[in-house]
């Protein structure tokens, strides 16, 4: 018999597998083109959610990722429109994201403002700045080869899936095998004890936000590649989906808990849900209700598990 704590932890995986098996009976689901499109659609949220996982583990939250995605994607696209090579443009998107994340981290730690408030502010500010840079208009002058990032394949699999895999491995490595990751858990679990232990709390917290921003900038470039435009209005509401993925995957908004694998599972649960509903003709309005219910269910199961464990 599997102990109940273990069972609860496996619940997201079980849900994902169950959903997948159930969807196999839905016509067209198993088509390679459909599965590839699930992967492509989920990848953007997934990569953002990886960064969000780190932030949430360290006890914070980043509500501004949707706006960071737009700024990174837009400025990266603009770089291409100005004639920069594609790799430089992608690096630009990532760097812009990292800078935005750094700003979030800096204000959270140096001005000692709650991360919810800081990023609520930058959610608006970053979006506004992007619209100012863009003068409200998207960039279309993007080289056609750039679509390879969002729509291309490497070894029969979507490019984004490889990118996601690389990001997942990177974040997993950071969280489980580096000082930064260990400190993130400690700061999220008990910031005061971390400070008393002599950890440079501000530095590492800022680093976590910057990494989240960088990943979000990359997600912004993928989004731009999928749309083949640099949209200053891209990514609205994505922050909630990214947070939802982390929470469904076992991350705790109180900090100190979360994992890459959990977040990936959480994001794919949401992705499959959206895809399955589309195939079954369930209205997108209902999809929102279902996802909302799943978030609440996932968290309440988790709380139940913890209460039993103590």
């Amino acid at each position, binding site marked *: 018999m599997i102990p109940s704590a273990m069972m609860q932890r496996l619940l997201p995986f079980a849900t994902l597998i169950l959903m997948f098996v159930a969807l196999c009976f839905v016509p067209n689901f198993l088509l390679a083109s459909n599965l590839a499109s699930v992967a492509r659609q989920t990848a953007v949220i997934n990569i953002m959610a990886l960064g969000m996982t780190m932030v949430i583990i360290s006890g914070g939250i980043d509500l501004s990722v949707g706006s960071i995605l737009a700024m990174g994607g837009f400025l990266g696209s603009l770089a291409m429109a100005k004639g920069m090579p594609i790799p430089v443009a992608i690096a630009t998107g990532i760097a812009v994201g990292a800078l935005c994340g750094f700003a979030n981290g800096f204000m959270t730690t140096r001005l000692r403002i709650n991360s919810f408030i800081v990023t609520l502010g930058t959610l608006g500010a970053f979006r506004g700045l992007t619209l100012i840079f863009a003068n409200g208009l998207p960039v279309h002058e993007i080289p056609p080869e750039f679509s390879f990032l969002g729509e291309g394949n490497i070894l029969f699999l979507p490019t984004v899936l490889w990118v996601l895999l690389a990001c997942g491995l990177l974040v997993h490595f950071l969280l489980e*095998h*580096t*000082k*930064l990751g*260990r*400190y993130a*858990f*400690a700061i999220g*679990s*008990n910031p*005061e*004890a*971390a*400070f*008393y*232990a*002599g*950890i*440079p709390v501000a530095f590492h917290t800022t680093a976590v936000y910057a990494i989240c921003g960088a990943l979000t900038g990359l997600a912004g470039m993928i989004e731009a590649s999928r749309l083949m435009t640099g949209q200053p209005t891209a990514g609205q509401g994505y922050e909630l989906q990214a947070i939802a993925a982390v929470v469904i995957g076992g991350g705790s908004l109180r900090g*100190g*808990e979360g994992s890459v694998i959990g977040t990936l599972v959480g994001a794919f649960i949401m992705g499959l849900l959206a895809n399955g509903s589309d195939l079954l003709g369930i209205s997108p309005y209902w999809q929102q209700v279902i996802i909302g219910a799943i978030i609440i269910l996932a968290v309440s199961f988790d709380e139940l598990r913890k209460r*039993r*464990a*103590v």
Partner: protein
Amino acid sequence: MLLELKKLEKRFGGVVALRDGNLQVRPSEVHLLMGENGAGKSTMMKIVAGMQRHDGGEMLLAGEAASFANPKQASLAGIAMVHQESLLAPHLTVGENIFLGREESGALGMVRRSRMMERANQLIRDHDFPLQADWRVDKLSPAGRQLVEICRAIAGEARLLIFDEPTSSLSESETRSVFAIVQRLKEKGAGVIYITHRLEELRTLGDQVTVLRDGATVHSAPLASLTRAELIQHMVGRDLDHLYSRTPQSPGAELLKVSNITRQGVLEDISFTLCAGEIVGLAGLMGAGRTELCRILFGIDEADAGQIEIEGKLLRARSPRDAVRAGVALIPEDRQRTGLATQLPVGWNLTLSSLSAHSRLGTLQAAALSATEQKFISRLRIKTNGPEQRAARLSGGNQQKIVIAKWLARGARIFLFDEPTRGIDVGAKMEVFEVMDSLAREGAAVLMVSSELPELIQVADRILVMRQGRIAGALPGRTTQEEIMSLAAFEKENPLQ
């Protein structure tokens, strides 16, 4: 019989917290409940107070079977509990907390605030507590919060009161007030159950004593019939005939030199030195500035004037990080809040301050980490299922050992122990003292802040006594409690006048 517990059982998952809890409390009786941490005292009392439900056995209240689904039901049955950890609403005032959940309400359910505050102030005045009803609880010291808990328990007309280590954070005079309260409750016919680790408190207070060990009642008798040594023996199940004693060695080089440290309104002109191989005690009443001094030495607060030198080098600590780098370690008074990330594994906590030494280019060296974890778990005899276990699951004494090990792994040389034995059982206390002794032998300097005078006398080589932010005097280690207390509490008489 007011309260009778028969073969009470409580399990948490696979863990048996209580397997054979027996207790009989009469009206007008002060019943002491003793036992090492993890013996099941708190669990048993939480069942009585309606915070947990028993899985087996019987609870009889005034001869009738009782079982409470929540604290409210227990409270209606006349049971009140003063908790060891503060269970107050920090953003509310003292008065609001005292009457939380039983506010007097007038028409339309509106709370009669001014009357409530008046009653709270009356209660506070009756017991001479240094509180006011309109103070916010989050501004209070741990001792202040404890007093609010006590007010809360005695505000209702309870017939059975449970005190869970009520005086562990209180000063001498506050402790006396608590004893007076207990005495008064007894005279009014209430039953009092009193959990304590402090053997010194026993004699003046208790009528009957029950000892728990490993979740079972092992002994119950009138207090007068037991010697202190017998009690300890029941608690730990082994002989502890000689209390701790250490052989001091001659001090080595000067490691820490504090000169004229002043912090407005808190500390004034503090100067002393700590040498390698020394254990120096720091005594004083609550509010004398002992914890505040530690905070400055550890870089949490900054001094207004004065300087700190470590091995001859000036230390300018703006954060604990600077102090830690200079080799200073703080084992804080409040280990749950500032010493440990309790939700994280034991091993992670152990190595939290020494990750840099265990990593290359920011990458953790798993083998080295696990070797360090194993080394300190066995060296300090930390009782745990393994380094992956969450620190929250360990007893207070074992948690304290994790905090100490964290600094040992870091290679600290100056150790500030702030109330190192608070809330830990007798056996673990001895082990903490042994660790302190071995630290000193290996050339570290130890500053031991403690309110437990017998412990200071047994462990420290010399004792500094603080009074109202100043060092009132220094005493040799083999001094008496009376000597320390007279320095801590009274101005020195000038022999010339």
